[in-house]
């Protein structure tokens, strides 16, 4: 029996959702829609004929309660009072998480005062009643705006046809056939056979890896411990799938750990044994040693071996920080993929140590322009849809989790058409002590129970780890997409915090990529084995094969190691919080990951082979500096250039989207993401309290500039670290406790037939690692965590569209007292303005040159570089910058500095504009001293993107003290803050810019306003 309910907005009540959809159809699709009204449809399926049926009076009550008496009307079957021209019905495909259906079930249970268990399933869908469109036009609106065919179904009919038909009652039930428990995979065939098995089963394993697995089993298969279990010299499907995911690029970082033969500019080849060990871990270990040798000691608590990095903060908590990417799923289903990105990364700090409280989210997206008008790779969505969906996914995921965002940014370039990059991160605070042991210590012991908590397992997200390790094409598997359910996760965290504070578990990790196979496999390394029974795992529906259960990436789940004597209390606490917790098995020390289905043995994997058996990659890398042309002629008029730059998407204010994210839930936000008199200028860095009752603060910033990677990835990396550190200083952070995370998103850097320039891309990676190391080491900024994502490209008409090699450096710093935090807005008329640091000709890769390239109509062919990249990327000379930073830190600490901003994209001009707009105050600036000192043209002075610089303001009374404090660092007094509302910039008496703030503000907010 299937009941159907429709809920609609009452006639006469304004329907914001329908109006919003209509406006989007008009604006984005340019279709002549007149009106859109929407309805919510609930299908209530009674699955079990033996269970108590829902009576007709009960159904009446449900309809009555589901429709708000003030706002809505509802009806059984269908509402018939409204007429429209076309009806579009959008539902979910089978197996796609339907969180609203889940909540509807809770509401009905409360209303009927009886549990519905699995006897009742509820499915939701939505109707759009549209006027002004033909059915063909409505089809297009459905496909291009209202629904994503990857996860949703679409039905379009004319209203009369729709009315004539019986109300639709088809439910997207998941129907799975019976699957055999254990299949053995025959690996005895030819090379081609092995590769075919890898392809067919979506293993993403190379031939060498397949052969290694074959050889392992043909040897160990004769081990009596294996034969006694009824297993053979052939791996089972569960074993092969588990190995494939554990050895995936996503989990094993094979490229970062490869042996690389590197040649630069025709020089002698060098062998690099693991980029990770050499440049990332190596850098941090050096810094850690130096810190430990100094007074005060090292403040690193736990780096590289857990789910996130941990550093000291105060006597009560440590800081935990992790940034992840969720690129491939976001390309296919931007909303669900990005939501999974944010709620997924939340589980990393929670899975660090014995569990951190989640404090702040961060996000950043590299996307193709929302205004893109060219052709799209087949199967991919328009960049505007990707952008809207990604934002909405992270908005809903973060807001519903009750976690404010601290940083948010966007970068646009059409090469991100190949794959959008979706960075999501979370800062947590880990209690320094939990019970009587340090919070960062996690130690599962043999005999501890394997307990899975949170959501149930479904077919969603199978092969996510292996899928993200391959390029996107039209046949990319849609089951790799999951949709996060922040409320289920929030309830799980509420329970886990209570369990943590009662010290009820000894270890915890999250079920992310690879699901149980990854979490149990990883935790079992501590004890040396585990034995679990997959038949105990709670499922959303029956019919999943054991390997699917083992690998499913169904969200909102964590795995715990629970001492047996605490299991009862833990399970009782879970029940009290209405969270499912299931004992799946025990951790052992016999050296094997042993998986059963009840009494049947379906996997028995040698832990050593599982985690260390994968063959090391040996790769070739080369790099040669590339030069690009410079603009033939540059405009005379700096003012015109400034106005044009302001409205470019890479510079323009992103406030319109950012306002939809909560930035102050928890009540700990001190410097908000947007600041200034109109709260519309992005802050250089943000500042948060770690808890109420303390004044010590957390400072967040980042540096990212992928446009430099084409000129020199070393410069990109050095610039990113420098920018992140400068932003920290601008907010008042100390220099002594800045830690950073590295997130590399690269196009495939492995030389192959499909990737003939793979060795160059790997060379770019080597250069980036070297730049990162050099500046981190000089500034003593340890890299405490990171992630790499290596196959960011797609195929368009047989051609590869690869993303720009992109490195994000996310910095987390500390401030002793948040009341000393600094903002970028000019504060008072009469304050002196100084430019600190040297300006040089660093126009290479600048926003200025890319603007000129587009202005001259010299668009690069899609996938190729901008024509005017130039040849002079910014550099970082740490011997010069560091003394300046120390002096500035001293001046800020002494209280002399009233505002600080730092030139990044758009250069000095943009830094001045931002401080003026934020202050709502004009300024008079003369660049004569700077231009003369460096022998620069005026436009280069204004728009060059040299690193190591600041724009600060100081009260006139304190200017002498400030200058004394800064000596002998390069420092240029260039003008003062004005009481008026005009920004004027001169050079030697010649006026370069004279603009009203209002015009500057309009331009600054225009670029993305209609995106």
């Amino acid at each position, binding site marked *: 029996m299937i009941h159907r309910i429709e809920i609609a907005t009452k006639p006469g009540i304004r329907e914001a959702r329908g109006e919003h959809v209509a406006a989007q159809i008009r604006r984005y699709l340019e279709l002549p829609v007149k009106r859109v009204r929407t309805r919510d449809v609930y299908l209530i399926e009674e699955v079990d004929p033996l269970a108590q049926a829902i009576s007709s009076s009960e159904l009446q009550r449900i309809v009555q309660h589901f429709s708000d008496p003030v*706002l809505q009307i509802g009806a059984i079957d269908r509402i018939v009072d409204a007429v429209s021209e076309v009806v579009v019905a959008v539902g979910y495909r089978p197996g796609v998480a339907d969180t609203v259906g889940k909540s509807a079930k809770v509401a009905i249970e409360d209303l009927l005062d009886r549990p519905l268990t699995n006897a009742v399933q509820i499915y939701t869908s939505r109707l759009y009643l549209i006027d002004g469109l033909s059915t063909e036009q409505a089809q297009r609106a459905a496909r291009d705006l209202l629904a994503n065919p990857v996860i949703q179904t679409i039905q379009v009919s004319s209203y009369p046809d729709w009315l004539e038909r019986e109300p639709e009652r088809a439910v997207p039930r998941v129907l799975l056939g019976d699957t055999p428990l254990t299949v053995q995979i025959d690996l005895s065939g030819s090379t081609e056979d092995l590769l075919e098995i890898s392809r067919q089963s979506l293993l993403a394993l190379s031939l060498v890896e397949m052969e290694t697995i074959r050889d392992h089993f043909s040897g160990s298969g004769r081990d009596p411990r294996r034969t006694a279990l009824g297993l053979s010299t052939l791996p089972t499907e569960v074993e092969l799938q588990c190995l494939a995911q554990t050895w995936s690029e996503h989990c094993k970082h094979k490229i970062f750990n490869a042996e690389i033969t590197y040649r630069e500019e025709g020089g002698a080849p060098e062998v690099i044994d693991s980029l990770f060990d050499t440049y990332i871990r190596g850098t941090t270990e050096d810094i850690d040693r130096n810190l430990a040798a100094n007074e005060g000691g090292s403040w690193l608590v736990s780096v590289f071996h857990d789910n996130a990095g941990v550093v000291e903060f105060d006597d009560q908590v440590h800081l935990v920080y992790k940034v992840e990417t969720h690129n491939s799923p976001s390309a296919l289903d931007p909303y669900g993929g990005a939501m999974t990105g944010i709620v997924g990364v939340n589980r990393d700090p929670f899975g660090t140590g014995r569990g951190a409280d989640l404090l702040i989210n961060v996000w950043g997206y590299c996307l193709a322009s929302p205004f893109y008008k060219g052709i799209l790779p087949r199967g991919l969505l328009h960049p505007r849809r990707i952008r809207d969906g990604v934002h909405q996914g992270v*908005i809903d995921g973060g807001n519903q989790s*009750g976690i404010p965002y601290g940083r948010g940014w966007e970068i646009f370039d059409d090469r991100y058409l190949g794959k959008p990059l979706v960075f999501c991160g979370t800062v947590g605070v880990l209690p320094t002590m939990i019970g009587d042991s340090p919070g960062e210590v996690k130690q599962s012991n043999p005999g501890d129970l394997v307990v899975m908590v949170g959501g149930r397992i479904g077919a969603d997200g199978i092969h996510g780890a292996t899928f993200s390790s391959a390029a996107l094409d039209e046949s990319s598997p849609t089951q790799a997409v999951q949709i996060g359910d922040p409320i289920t996760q929030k*309830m799980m965290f*509420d329970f886990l915090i209570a369990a943590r504070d009662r010290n009820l578990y000894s270890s915890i990790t999250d079920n992310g990529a690879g699901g149980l196979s990854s979490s149990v496999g990883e935790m079992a390394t501590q004890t040396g084995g585990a034995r679990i029974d997959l038949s105990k795992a709670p499922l959303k529906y029956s019919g999943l094969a054991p390997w699917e259960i083992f690998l499913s990436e169904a969200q909102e789940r964590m795995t715990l190691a629970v001492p047996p004597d605490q299991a009862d209390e833990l399970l009782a606490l879970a029940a*009290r919080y209405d969270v499912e917790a299931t004992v799946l098995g025990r951790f052992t020390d016999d050296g094997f990951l042993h998986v059963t289905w009840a009494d049947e043995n379906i996997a028995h994997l040698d832990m050593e082979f599982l985690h260390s058996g994968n063959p090391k990659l040996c790769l070739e890398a080369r790099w040669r500096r590339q030069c690009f042309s410079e603009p033939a002629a540059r405009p005379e008029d700096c003012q015109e250039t400034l106005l044009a730059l302001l409205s470019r998407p890479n510079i323009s204010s992103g406030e319109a989207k950012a306002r939809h994210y*909560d930035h102050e*839930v928890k009540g*700990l936000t001190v410097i908000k993401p947007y600041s200034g008199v109109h709260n519309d200028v992005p802050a250089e860095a943000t500042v948060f309290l770690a808890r*109420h009752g303390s004044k010590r603060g957390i400072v967040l910033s980042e540096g990212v500039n992928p446009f430099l990677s084409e000129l020199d990835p070393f410069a990109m990396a050095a610039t990113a670290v420098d920018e992140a550190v400068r932003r920290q200083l601008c907010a008042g952070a100390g220099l002594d406790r800045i830690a950073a995370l590295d997130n590399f998103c690269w196009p495939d850097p492995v030389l192959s037939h499909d990737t003939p320039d793979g060795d160059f891309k790997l060379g770019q990676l080597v250069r980036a690692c070297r730049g990162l190391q050099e500046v981190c080491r000089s500034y003593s900024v340890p890299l405490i965590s990171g992630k790499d994502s290596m196959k960011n490209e797609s195929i368009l008409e047989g051609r590869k569209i690869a993303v720009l090699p992109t490195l994000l450096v996310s910095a987390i710093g500390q401030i002793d007292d948040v009341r000393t935090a600094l903002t970028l807005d000019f504060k008072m008329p009469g304050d002196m303005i100084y430019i600190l640091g040297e300006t040089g000709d660093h126009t290479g890769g600048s926003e200025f040159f890319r603007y000129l390239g587009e202005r001259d109509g010299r668009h690069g062919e899609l996938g190729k570089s901008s024509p005017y990249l130039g040849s002079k990327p910014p550099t970082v000379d740490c011997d010069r910058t560091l003394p300046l930073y120390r002096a500035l830190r001293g001046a800020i600490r002494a209280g002399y500095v009233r505002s600080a901003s730092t030139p990044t994209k758009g250069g000095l001009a943009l830094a001045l504009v931002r401080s003026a707009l934020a202050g709502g105050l004009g300024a008079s600036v003369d660049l004569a001293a700077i231009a003369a000192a460096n022998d620069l043209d005026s436009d280069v002075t204004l728009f060059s993107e040299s690193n190591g610089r600041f724009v600060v303001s100081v009260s006139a009374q304190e200017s002498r003290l400030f200058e004394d404090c800064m000596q002998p660092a390069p420092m240029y007094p260039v003008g003062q803050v004005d009481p008026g509302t005009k920004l004027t910039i001169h050079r030697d008496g010649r006026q370069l810019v004279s603009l009203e703030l209002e015009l500057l503000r309009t331009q600054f907010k225009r670029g993305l306003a209609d995106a």
Partner: protein
Amino acid sequence: MPERTVRHPKVRVLIPTGLGLNCEIETAEGFRLVGAKPDCVPLLDILNRRIERRLLDYHILAFVGGFAFGDHLGAGFVYANKIRWKIYDRILEFIEAGGLIIGICNGFQMMVRLGMLPGFDGDYRTPSVALAPNDRLGYRDAWIQLVADDKSPCLWTRGLHKIELPARHGEGKFVAGSQDILQKLEENHQIPLRYADDLGQPTQVWPNNPNGSAAAVAGICDPTGRVFGLMPHPDAYLYPFQHPQWSRRRYSGESAVEEGGLSIFRNGVAAVSDRLTSATPATPVSSSHGVD
């Protein structure tokens, strides 16, 4: 941080948590800073009667902001439904006994769904107003200005004239079930807070009125003034340095004279405290005949 804490050791505040609610930490801190003793208790424990203290042992019940059940099926709907069928009788007893209730954002949405507000003539069960999706669709977090009605019986807004707070919601557009209801709210001065423009006048213009609320309604109270719900977050303005302009105010001299959202918590706690210290028993509810 305000050091002017007055101790009201006897004022106990119950803050239900869980199920997707998320503003309990700052709301509890707000009450703590004005001297009350807040208890954060999982709502499931309250629904399943697993708490030591009775509801009537508390003086204030605070329904915090968040996304109970993801606001699926409409903000506050599943949440209100749970309260209605499991513990509403006990809450009505609490109101009748003179208890104070504040609902912020999601808490306010829930109260309106239940009919706890506006509470005309002691009827706390009939929903007659709603909080609909914002005219400009979607969640938005921005600070707004509010102007208070000094004739309102609301105990929570006594002495307030103007206050700035962040509005952080996607469904906050106040809709009255009829013109009569709106008129009655106005006549009874049951609209203690309205969205205001820069001149302090109630406004219908975005973004000062962030959601298109009728009559610029930001919060309403019951006729006794003890039960109060509002969309903006007093819990987000406990310290001067939470104001978006705090770092400018250091130099301009216009230091934060108002104490922000704390004043609302202080009013509620003071109202209880006055009653506790005065010998007279609690003022009875104006009319409880409508309570079934």
